[in-house]
């Protein structure tokens, strides 16, 4: 048993070395597929984190009557936090609102002068609501308008923000739809490549398999070396793709960070190295096994 295993492995290794041209062609194809799989994973994960960032930056502000006490507002806040669609509620006092405004506009003398002319703090206390999904903001706004506190609410800025929120919603759903379509196209491409790789392998090994059968080799003794060869190609393709991605991401990550602050693709790559390696091995080695098995199967029918 062990002798057979060793013989199969040695034979596969020898074939891999001796058929270097064929091995190289297979490795190139597999590297492309492993890279595609990695790319899909990275795109999906980074677009997901981009969407999350965008979603977090959108909120719904509810302004309340001037004479409401902080305690009353905190009670309302607690009640709102229990609504299932709401992710978080943040209380912003009148002072904090003024402070935030002056900090934002301190370089604009016209605005600062007009603020001084008002004399008092013109800002109202507000609750800033974050929903789990952009789609929930409409229903949350509707809920507030019809709730028991509608009397003490002076303004819900949903109507002002609605177009922006809806646009964000359509963008995020477009991104996930595009991701799905891209994924499907990639799956199709990969299938076509697999069958062509298998066909290449078939042309290459048809005669050999026939000879092995005629001299009485068992099916596993024939299949084994081809599988070993496929796995070796897959492993090498994985290694190449891993190095390729490390290099490219290290180089372009700072450039991408300009596009969206806080997006560090290289750090993400390193942090998820084991998952990515797993995906790559699955794609590379899986493909190697699948294509060799497909190639051999056709000629193994005794």
């Amino acid at each position, binding site marked *: 048993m062990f002798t057979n295993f060793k013989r199969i492995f040695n034979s596969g290794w020898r*074939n891999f070395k001796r058929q270097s041209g064929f091995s190289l062609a297979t490795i190139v194809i597999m590297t492309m597929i492993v890279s595609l799989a990695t790319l899909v994973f990275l795109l999906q994960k980074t677009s997901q984190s981009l969407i999350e960032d965008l979603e977090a930056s959108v909120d719904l502000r509810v302004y309340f009557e001037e004479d409401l006490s902080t305690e009353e507002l905190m009670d309302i806040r607690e009640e709102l936090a229990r609504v299932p669609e709401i992710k978080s509620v943040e209380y912003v006092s009148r002072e904090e609102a003024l402070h935030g405004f002056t900090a934002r506009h301190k370089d604009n003398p016209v605005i600062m002068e007009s603020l001084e002319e008002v004399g008092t703090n013109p800002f109202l206390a507000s609750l800033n609501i974050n929903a789990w999904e952009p789609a929930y903001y409409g229903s949350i706004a509707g809920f507030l308008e019809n709730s028991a506190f509608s009397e003490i609410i002076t303004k819900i800025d949903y109507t002002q923000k609605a177009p922006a929120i809806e646009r964000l919603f359509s963008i995020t759903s477009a991104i996930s739809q595009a991701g799905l379509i891209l994924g499907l196209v990639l799956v199709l491409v990969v299938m076509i490549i697999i069958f062509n790789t298998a066909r290449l392998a078939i042309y290459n090994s048809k005669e050999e398999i026939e*000879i092995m059968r005629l*001299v*009485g*080799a068992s099916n596993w*003794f024939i299949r084994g070396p081809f599988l070993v060869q496929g796995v070796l190609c897959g492993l090498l393709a994985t290694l190449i793709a891993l190095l390729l991605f490390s290099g490219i991401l290290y180089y372009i990550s700072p450039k991408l960070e300009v596009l969206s602050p806080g997006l560090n693709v290289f750090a993400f790559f390193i942090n998820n190295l084991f998952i990515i390696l797993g995906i790559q091995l699955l794609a590379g080695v899986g493909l190697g096994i699948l294509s060799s098995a497909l190639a051999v199967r056709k000629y193994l029918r005794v």
Partner: protein
Amino acid sequence: MISFRNVTKIYQTGSQPIVAIEDVCFEVKEGEFVSIVGRSGAGKTTLLKLLLAEEKPNKGSIFFEEQDIHRAKSGTISHFRRRLGAIFQDYKLLPHKTTFENIAYIMEVMGHSKEEVLANVPEVLELVGLTERANNFPKELSGGEKQRAAIARALIHKPKVILADEPTGNLDPYHTRDIIKLLDTINQMGTVVILATHNKNIINKLGKRVITLEEGKIVRDEERGRFIL
């Protein structure tokens, strides 16, 4: 030892079926050297393919040591083939293995130890005169050398029967004489040899049993036959 019983083989290619072998009956006893002769297309190769279980007969059955080889389970066909040695006109050597590895392959298939392989392969290589070519690949060998390597492969596991399909078809008269001499020697050591050929000189010189095929039928089966068509 080997027995063909009313064997018919029809190929269904194109619009018209081709009858390759029709109602063939014969027996081969232990230690025999049987030549099968006939024109191209007479059915010689089909006969050997049936015996090697490469093709299935449409009618009749073929027995090897009391076992119907086409009734065997598909998993056991490889085991059956290991009891034969086959030599082909186009050599059928594994292109990515050296001469040594090609011959050792059968022993590996049969599960022999590394020590046995290292002891037996050089011996057989010497018998066929290929010691110097052990580490060459098939593409680096001449036609005669390839055929000798193929014979070495057919011999290495000491099969009871050697099937040779036009083994001299691609060789010059000098190499042809060598190969036939080798097959004769193997036969004298007790191995059954079944040789398919259309080389008149070989048959007439051998003076052994000759089965003559014509359009898939046996027209002559003589103990000390001559090549007559």
